[in-house]
């Protein structure tokens, strides 16, 4: 019994370490300059479309609604102190520091991360990756790197868009519907939001999330068992792992940045 437990423990340990090693190699491969220059650019644009543009709608809608809800909830809380003028501050700070980076990262993991895993898993299953290798083209440069950089560029932008639309949504509900003074809404927000401490840290967070999500998604796809079952498992696993990683990292980053 004991040996069995030890055995399975050792096994999962070895699996974890080899998995981490393979993931590390993947990241290195993606980051290694390929010397392809001009040929890389169209690939990147294509992936920016898939990863960024196609996530835009869900980000905008989610941002608007979260901002509106924040405004509603915040108003009913703040009005008790007669401090409803600070609504703008509350909405902006919660969006910029937390909700913007985290919620857009979670949506990104669900929308773009799962799609990346499925796509690469499918490429593996249909031997497209092998066939690239046999054409003397490194799939790291052709497939992995453009997707990685596209994710890295897209998520911070998406997160900024999310926050911007969230604040607009908050304004819509707070000012146009609940009647908070628009001057106070913006002025108190402007007085309390700081570029370095609130916006830049939020963007930094989403860059970290971007690296982690894209990395997990690419790794899961690249390491997927090339069957339909394997791909569907890998896709689920991407969403779960990436979401948990985002939430865990968010705590660590927040503790580091705001303590």
């Amino acid at each position, binding site marked *: 019994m004991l040996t069995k437990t030890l055995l399975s423990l050792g096994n999962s340990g070895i699996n974890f370490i080899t998995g981490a090693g393979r993931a590390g190699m993947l990241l290195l491969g993606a980051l290694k300059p390929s010397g392809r220059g001009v040929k890389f650019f*169209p690939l990147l*644009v*294509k992936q*920016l*479309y898939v990863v*960024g*543009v196609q996530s*835009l709608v869900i980000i905008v809608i989610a941002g608007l609604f979260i901002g509106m809800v924040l405004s509603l909830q915040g108003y009913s809380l703040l009005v008790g*102190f007669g*401090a409803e003028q600070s609504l703008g501050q509350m909405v*902006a700070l919660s969006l*910029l520091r937390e909700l913007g980076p985290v919620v857009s990262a979670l949506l990104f993991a669900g929308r773009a991360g799962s799609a990346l895993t499925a796509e690469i898993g499918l490429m593996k299953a249909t031997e497209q990756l092998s066939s690239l290798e046999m054409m003397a083209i490194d799939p790291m440069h052709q497939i992995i790197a453009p997707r990685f950089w596209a994710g890295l560029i*897209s998520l*911070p*932008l*998406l997160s*900024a*868009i999310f*926050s*911007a*639309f969230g*604040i607009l949504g908050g304004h819509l509900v707070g000012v146009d519907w609940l009647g908070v003074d628009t001057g106070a809404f*913006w002025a108190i*927000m*402007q*007085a*309390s*939001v*700081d*570029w*370095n*401490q*609130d*916006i830049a840290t939020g*963007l930094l967070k989403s860059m970290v999330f971007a690296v982690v999500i894209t990395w997990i998604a690419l790794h899961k796809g690249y390491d997927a068992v090339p069957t339909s079952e394997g791909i569907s498992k890998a896709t689920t696993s991407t969403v779960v792992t990436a979401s948990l990683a985002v939430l865990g990292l968010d705590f660590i980053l927040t503790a580091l940045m705001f303590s």
Partner: protein
Amino acid sequence: MISKKIQLMVGAFLLIGIAAILMLAIKVADSRMGGGGDVYVLSAKFDNVGGLKVRSAVKVGGVVVGRVSAISLDDDFSPLVVMKIESKFNQFSDSSSVAILTSGLLGEQFIGLTPGFIDEDSEILTSGGMIEDTRSAMVLEDLIGQFLYGGNDD
């Protein structure tokens, strides 16, 4: 080969993203990025700084002219506040006074600077200068205490 439509959409996406960051920077944070232009340093000693924090505003007649850059304790255990004032507001005389004020009853605290008169006795404050005339933060508990006990006890 990628189609024109994709290129266009990606361009638009990047533009929207950058526009969002700019909107956050200008409309939401109202910051002159990277700390803004030239500043000079003034300091002042208070008895009590209350809820004043680093980066709190320094205002003259409600207009922000600078921000608190450091709060520390002096040798004689009185709080020393260092402020960075924008260089274009460099005409404060050494008879100017500062007070820690609160915006609204529960709002955040800031430093209100009242410029002194300029005459032959006074000098213009330069970087590193000290403002002597200070009024400390109003602490709500003390205020309530004064109100309850008629202000007799200190």
